[in-house]
């Protein structure tokens, strides 16, 4: 068994109850230590569903989902939280919390219900904050943070879990270019230096192409292409999937997509 293989989906098919068609059809995906995989595709193509299947939150009708070689459904939430740190697309921030305490929440899976926080937990929090360059934010209230700062804190929380894999669902939505780049650079650094595995769902095709090792392009729940960005993101494929004319220009040996003008009638 390949112990670097963290998440593995083999030919999974899934349909939500009362849905007209499958959300995901016959998709396979393998995510290993030290690599960054980007999930791309138009809205509704099944990216988040695929993620849920990979994490055992949904059970595939066909195919298998495995985590570290064991069926995803057999993993308890707690065990999984020690392995995979997820930065979800949305969360509620209805109450005031200090940054340090918010990051501390990431230690939940490693704490027993009856014991208090231990020195190693606080150390993990400090390390995670440092990794995200958020140490100076530690005593701030969550509600006072800007969008970019808040994302850094959420990433730190995921890192406080001391995971082997990071999963980020549209982490740069509503961030400006500086914070976008910072986030992707940070994830890339974590993958390279700490040998973490990373799965990123994003609409930023160009950033995905620059930072990811592999790309999985979905359309209508099917895998249109999987492989290096250069191999998958060809003009024909991109135009077909996103239904808009584009030009593909290389930059830093990576394909960059430039949408063309198409004035509406």
């Amino acid at each position, binding site marked *: 068994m390949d112990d670097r293989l963290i998440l593995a989906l083999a030919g999974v098919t899934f349909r939500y109850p009362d849905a007209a068609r499958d959300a995901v059809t016959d998709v396979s995906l393998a995510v290993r230590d030290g690599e960054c995989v980007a999930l791309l595709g138009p809205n509704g193509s099944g990216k988040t569903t695929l993620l849920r299947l990979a994490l055992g939150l949904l059970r595939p009708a066909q195919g298998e989902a495995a985590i570290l070689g064991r069926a995803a459904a057999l993993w308890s*939430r*707690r065990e999984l*939280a020690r392995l995979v740190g997820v930065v*979800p697309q949305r969360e509620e*921030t209805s109450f005031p919390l200090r940054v340090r305490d918010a990051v501390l929440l990431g230690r939940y899976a490693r704490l027993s*219900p*009856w014991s208090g926080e231990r020195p190693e937990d606080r150390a993990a929090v400090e390390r995670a904050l440092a990794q995200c360059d958020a140490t100076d934010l530690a005593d701030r209230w969550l509600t006072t943070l800007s969008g970019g700062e808040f994302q850094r804190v959420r990433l730190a929380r995921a890192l406080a*879990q001391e995971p082997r894999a990071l999963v980020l669902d549209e982490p740069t939505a509503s961030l400006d270019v500086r914070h976008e780049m910072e986030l992707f650079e940070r994830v890339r650094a974590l993958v390279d230096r700490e040998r973490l595995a990373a799965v990123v769902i994003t609409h930023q095709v160009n950033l995905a192409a620059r930072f990811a090792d592999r790309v999985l392009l979905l359309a209508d729940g099917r895998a249109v292409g999987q492989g290096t960005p250069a191999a998958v993101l060809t003009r024909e494929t991109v135009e077909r999937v996103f239904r808009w004319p584009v030009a593909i220009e290389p930059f830093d040996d990576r394909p960059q997509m430039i949408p063309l003008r198409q004035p509406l009638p």
Partner: protein
Amino acid sequence: MKWLALIALALASLVCAVMLGPSHVPTAELFSSPIVRDLRLPRALLAFLVGGALGTAGASLQALVRNPLADPYLLGLSGGAGLGAVAAIALHLAGPWALPLAAFAGALGAMGLVYRLGLVGGAELDPRVLILAGVAVGAFAAAVTTALVSLSDATELRNAFLWLWGGLSGASWDTVRVMAIYTPLPLAVLYAAARPLDLLALGDEPARHLGADVERVKRRVYVAASLLTAAAVAVSGVIGFVGLIVPHVMRTLWGHHHRTLLPAAFLGGGTLLALADTLARTAIAPRELPVGIVTALVGVPVFTLLLRRWTTA
């Protein structure tokens, strides 16, 4: 430091409850007086236990439904308990435990019904569904209660409403013993769920990703908080505002960590109710005010103050 102050306040409230009362007991005779020993002391302890149960249940339920304006009675429990109690009065059920048991049964019925409704359509105890189901069940129970009350004669009518308003006049060492044996388990369940409750505030899915078994936590918190509230209503009627106000006041001092908030809410709730009951017994002596009225009179201004801070913050 805060803890010392809270514990001191709690003890002070108990001392007040024992020393003050409508009948005059000289301090020298305090320990030998049968009135203090058999009436005031168990009543003070019962007030503390009931207030503590309501405070803790309130704090937990506010986290469960992600709504700081939630109250233990939001989930239809008071309606169900009231219906059980009024049914017992109307049916002239005998026995000293008939009324509390009937109220408890009514509350459990409401709890089960709301739980079942909370699962409808795969909702999995979605907070909004729970709240709506609670309101619906509560309204239904209140309607049936009113019907029963209107069919009974005038004195029973008045007496049923007085019971519903809440009172600790049924306090005895027997009731204290029952509460003292009963409450630790649900309280322990809630305390064990303290950290997951912190996570739950982020939303179901983020909480799941951080390792919480969301369904199990929600079930346990719901059942434990409901059991605490059901017991409180069974022994003392519907005493409002304690479960709503106390968690908020404690949160301003202890923050949102449920590992510290829940015990603080217990102590705070106990203190509040012990003091409110003392006021209820002494304010218009020899007459007694229903304690639910005192907590409402105290609770409403405090609540409006909190509401202003909450909306302007």
